[in-house]
């Protein structure tokens, strides 16, 4: 049995801080089953007044839609035709626009004031389905393969022009793809990290950007609780001199889920790392905790 280990974090861009604009990026994920992950990131248009709300709506609606899917669809993911995948995402886009329209009425503004991009992926151990409207990127890697950029960022002639879910041409510009290779590491991000993570001249992911992030996930049992590394990176001076925009990282790594309390010999297919006794103990106590959590009602779950 496998399980996705994941984290999503955003940080406000220094350009936005200067102008007192809130963080307009939003990213989130959900493990529908331990080995089925749905993730979404969105970047609110800098020029749209309530685009931070737009981004939140787009991401939450995406995740909710996939959570509602009948269980067996994930097993059928590989049989999903491109046609069917497109239908699913068009349906999603309609839902998002409906909610954005409602929110615009509440806020008493034009729906375009909630303009935002959207990138969504659904990943199982066997494959991925993904979509992208606007710029930003999803990069993924099979266990023994190269990093791949799933879609080319959608840009107009100018670097700061792109398509938004609210654009009249959103459906035509929406990119959808079904991937039948086994994903192991995934990173989704908004365009704030594009020019440090992707080599524009050949549209290739820059390996040295992604490998430390992958390493971080390999070494961190509960990334959501141990996020210092990611926070430090997103807020680092070095990154902020290179990008003034909001930044979002959504990371996933497919790990081996051990269902017993025995420490496995070495049957995982992860690269072997020398483990200290301390680390092994940590692992064991974490697994025990998780099993306890599994049997307890949610209110008295341990949260350390």
């Amino acid at each position, binding site marked *: 049995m496998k399980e996705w280990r994941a984290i999503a974090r955003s940080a406000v861009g220094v*350009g*936005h801080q200067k*102008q007192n604009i809130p963080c307009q990026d939003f990213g989130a994920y959900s493990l529908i089953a331990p080995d089925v992950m749905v993730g979404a990131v969105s*970047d609110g*248009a*800098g*020029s*749209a007044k309530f*685009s931070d709300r737009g981004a939140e709506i787009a991401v939450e609606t995406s995740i909710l839609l996939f959570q509602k899917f009948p269980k067996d669809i994930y097993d059928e993911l590989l049989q999903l035709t491109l046609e069917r995948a497109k239908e699913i995402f068009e349906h999603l886009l309609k839902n998002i626009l409906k909610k954005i329209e409602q929110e615009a009425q509440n806020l008493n503004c034009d729906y*375009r004031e909630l*303009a935002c991009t959207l990138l969504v992926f659904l990943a199982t151990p066997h494959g991925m389905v993904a979509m992208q409207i606007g*710029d930003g990127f999803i990069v993924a890697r099979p266990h023994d393969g190269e990093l791949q950029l799933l879609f080319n960022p959608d*840009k107009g*002639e*100018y*670097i*700061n*022009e*792109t398509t*938004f879910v609210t654009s009249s041409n959103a459906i035509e510009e929406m990119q959808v793809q079904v991937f039948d290779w086994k994903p192991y590491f995934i990173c989704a991000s908004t*365009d704030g990290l594009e*020019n*440090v*993570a*992707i*080599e*524009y*001249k050949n549209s290739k992911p*820059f390996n*040295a*950007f*992604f*490998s*430390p*992030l992958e*390493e*971080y996930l390999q*070494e961190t049992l509960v990334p959501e609780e141990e996020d210092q*590394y990611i926070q*430090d*990176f997103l807020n*680092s001076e*070095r990154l902020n*001199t*290179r990008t*003034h*925009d909001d930044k979002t990282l959504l990371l996933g790594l497919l790990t081996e889920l051990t269902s017993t309390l025995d420490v496995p010999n070495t049957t995982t297919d992860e690269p072997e790392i020398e483990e200290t006794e301390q680390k092994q103990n940590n692992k064991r106590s974490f697994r025990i905790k998780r099993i306890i959590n599994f049997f307890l009602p949610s209110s008295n779950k341990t949260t350390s």
Partner: protein
Amino acid sequence: MPVGLPEFADNTENRCPVILLLDTSASMSGEPIRQLNMGISDFKGNLLEDTQATLSVELSIITFGQIVNVIQNFTSVDEFTPPTLQTSGTTPMGEAINSALDLLEERKMIYKDNGIPYYRPWIFLITDGAPTDDWQMAAQRLHQKDAEGGCLFFAVGVEGADMNTLTQIAPPNRPPALLSGLNFRELFVWLSSSMKRVSGGKVGEAIALPPVGWAQIST
């Protein structure tokens, strides 16, 4: 924890080309040209305060006074040396607009050939007179370029400028502004903050530019 933080891809910085199209005809002599020279010098200083703008903005200057002259081809802000402009002769504005559009086309080709991402280019015209050459064709070409989103054209009239003709030269949706007094410095402060904004965020429809405090009427 992993050894080290993510390394960065070595991409060229996004570019934001700006052409200053400056009237150096005889009527600009004396105080106006002195203030304009100071304004341009401030412009460089203001842009240098902002890392992103310094990396992005590429400046070029075309003057028109008796002849049209590309006195500065596109250069980065830190390598830009503010010129000391001299005045003479007539006002060949039409020809100047054409050279600006040609220079821009050339620049875009260079960007495209080298895979350099760029922002919408700006052309910033400053004049105190009326064109002394055939400007109608140039204006037509300019309106088309602007409407296609090929550039952002701003016209600024200095006291004494023929605002009627300038209104016909400027794109219909962006009427010319009349500079109050010789407020060149403030004009260039505004231009540099606009540049900083442009090289910052993403645009949906248009960028909200800073309020125009240097003009008599801001339409």
